[in-house]
């Protein structure tokens, strides 16, 4: 690599159209484990946008125009190859009375950060009903528990009755006029409208970024979870799932099989309908420290691996976010087919990651948030960036990124040092 000149000046004078094509190519090459012209840079700005704009996080959600301006400002300042802002919008959650998320201004102070409030919405004694008919259980039992404004759904007859045609009209349609049922459907409709409004904003945002030369960021659009995490995050909670592992392992395994199947159906059909070739899989309880390797080999990895293989078989690239530390588990990741998945790494030893899975998957990550906090020195940031480019970037297949997809509380000048250094040290010599 040429480390003698500051390469970020190279882009000066290029049109947004040119830059868009170059950036897309750079990212696409890295994903395919090829060596691009230089290491692509991805930035998850998160709530940094609110700090930059001097507004609260609540305002960031409630003023999409302002949020877009701030995102564009960040993009033009730091010139990454991929950029995204804060996560989603609270409106649909508020409409349905979502009990598992908390948002700035809704369940939190206006400057609080989005949080997932894990609870035991599914009890251990629910397994049999869940296994017998997950869809019926999800609509009539789970949704009323997890979404306060949807309690009326508990009054519906077993969903299988819908297969009874005319007789179902005769026997059950009057239930749809019951006030709690009506208000549940109204809440769902309202949430759907908000969701659709948000999607239109996201598409508009992508268009505006593209006009400035920044590729649309669609990678997070289709989300599924490792079957174990699906059972844990929104259903049993961590305490519940670990007790299930010890007390009723066979039921947990059977449930994982079920959720794997319908998640695959969902992901594959959505990918076909939208043309989005990525499926995002954030991982939670499989990282080092939660369970033993033996437990991982029984309850976590086989189900996740099978899910990934089936997605790959369907022409989809799984983008997996390996949250936490995966240092003891990297050898499993090396079993995946080469060049067919993407791995974002949070706190794993990124140099070790390159060594073990560098030939298997495109690696995203590298810059720990703690390096960019006020008080760290620019030379530290520059040195680490240099080392990341040299070692993790070696031969391609690397996208430089901040490790937690969030830059809240980071020093803007240190961010600049990092992004500049990535362009300076990230150039591949021909």
């Amino acid at each position, binding site marked *: 690599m040429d480390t003698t000149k500051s390469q970020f000046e190279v882009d000066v004078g290029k049109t947004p159209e040119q830059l868009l094509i170059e950036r897309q190519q750079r990212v696409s090459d890295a994903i395919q484990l090829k060596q691009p012209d230089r290491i692509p840079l991805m930035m998850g700005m998160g709530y940094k946008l609110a700090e930059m704009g001097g507004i609260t996080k609540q305002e960031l959600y409630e003023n999409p125009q302002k949020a877009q301006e701030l995102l564009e400002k960040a993009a033009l300042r730091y010139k990454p190859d991929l950029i995204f802002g804060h996560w989603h919008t609270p409106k649909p959650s508020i409409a349905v009375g979502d009990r598992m998320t908390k948002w700035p201004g809704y369940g939190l102070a206006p400057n609080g950060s989005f949080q997932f409030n894990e609870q035991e919405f599914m009890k251990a004694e629910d397994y049999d009903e869940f296994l017998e008919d997950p869809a019926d259980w999800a609509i009539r039992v789970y949704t009323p528990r997890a979404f306060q404004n949807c309690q009326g759904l508990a009054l519906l007859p077993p969903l299988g009755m819908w297969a009874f045609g005319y007789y179902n009209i005769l026997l059950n349609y009057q239930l749809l006029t019951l006030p709690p049922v009506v208000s549940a459907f109204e809440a769902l409709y309202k949430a759907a409208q908000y969701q659709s409004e948000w999607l239109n904003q996201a598409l508009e945002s992508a268009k505006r970024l593209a006009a400035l030369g920044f590729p649309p960021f669609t990678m997070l659009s289709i989300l599924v979870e490792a079957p174990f995490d699906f059972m844990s995050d929104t259903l049993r909670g*961590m305490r519940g799932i670990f007790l299930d592992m010890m007390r009723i392992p066979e039921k947990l395994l059977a449930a994982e099989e079920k959720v794997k199947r319908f998640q695959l159906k969902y992901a594959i059909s959505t990918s076909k309908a939208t043309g989005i070739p990525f499926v995002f899989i954030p991982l939670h309880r499989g990282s080092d420290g939660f369970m033993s390797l033996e437990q991982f080999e029984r309850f976590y990895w086989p189900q996740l691996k099978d899910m990934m293989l089936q997605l790959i078989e369907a022409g989809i690239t799984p983008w997996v976010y390996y949250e936490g530390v995966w240092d003891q588990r990297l050898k499993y990741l090396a079993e995946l087919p080469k060049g067919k998945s993407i791995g974002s790494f949070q706190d794993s030893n990124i140099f070790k990651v390159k060594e073990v899975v560098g030939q298997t998957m495109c690696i995203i990550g590298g810059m720990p948030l703690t390096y960019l906090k006020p008080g760290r020195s620019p030379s530290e940031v520059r040195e680490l960036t240099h080392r990341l480019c040299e070692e993790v970037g070696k031969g391609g297949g690397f996208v430089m990124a901040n490790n937690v997809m969030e830059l809240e509380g980071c020093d803007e000048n240190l961010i600049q040092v990092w992004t500049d250094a990535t362009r300076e040290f990230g150039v591949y010599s021909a």
Partner: protein
Amino acid sequence: MSQELIQAITEMREEDALKITQQMLDAGKDPLEVLEACRQAMEVIGKRFEAGDCFIPELILAGEMLRQVSDLIKPRLQKEATQKKHGKVVIGTVEGDIHDIAKDIVAFMLDVNGFEVTDLGVDVPPAKFVEATKETGAKVVALSGFLTLAYDPMKATVEALKAAGLNDVKVMIGGGQIDEQIRQFTGADGWGRDAMAAVKMANAWYGVN
């Protein structure tokens, strides 16, 4: 029988542990003997956890076993016969953060390792930490935070304790994104990655061998 109970708990045989407890009580054994067996079992599990030989599922199941055992012995336990504690610890997840899983595990491990734990819950403002520390006379405060946003409230809590004149109180921090840099930033006395690190710090600060 104590030995059998220790073995049942450490081998994660939940039903056996409860059965043996019941047998011990039926045979007229002192409830404190049962508690002592539980303590020894937890010591073994804690060591295994520290060594990476057992993980969170085992800690959670052990916690469940302990809860059920203590439910069984509670009616027979004399108030004055409770076990002697090493010292008091005030624990909570800092303001703005509602994550409780890690905090609960740390509180549990401190408790079974002989500390009297005051758990303030989640989203705890600095003033509440100060108040509880004064009230209990605890010399150790444990701050938990999963989010990166926890750094500032941690710092604010450390400062609030100092401002209230509680200079002899030691503060430990822990959570997803905590390291030595963050410890320095917050002004805390120690940081740790897991529940056993918290126990070790509390032991050291209270002079427990």
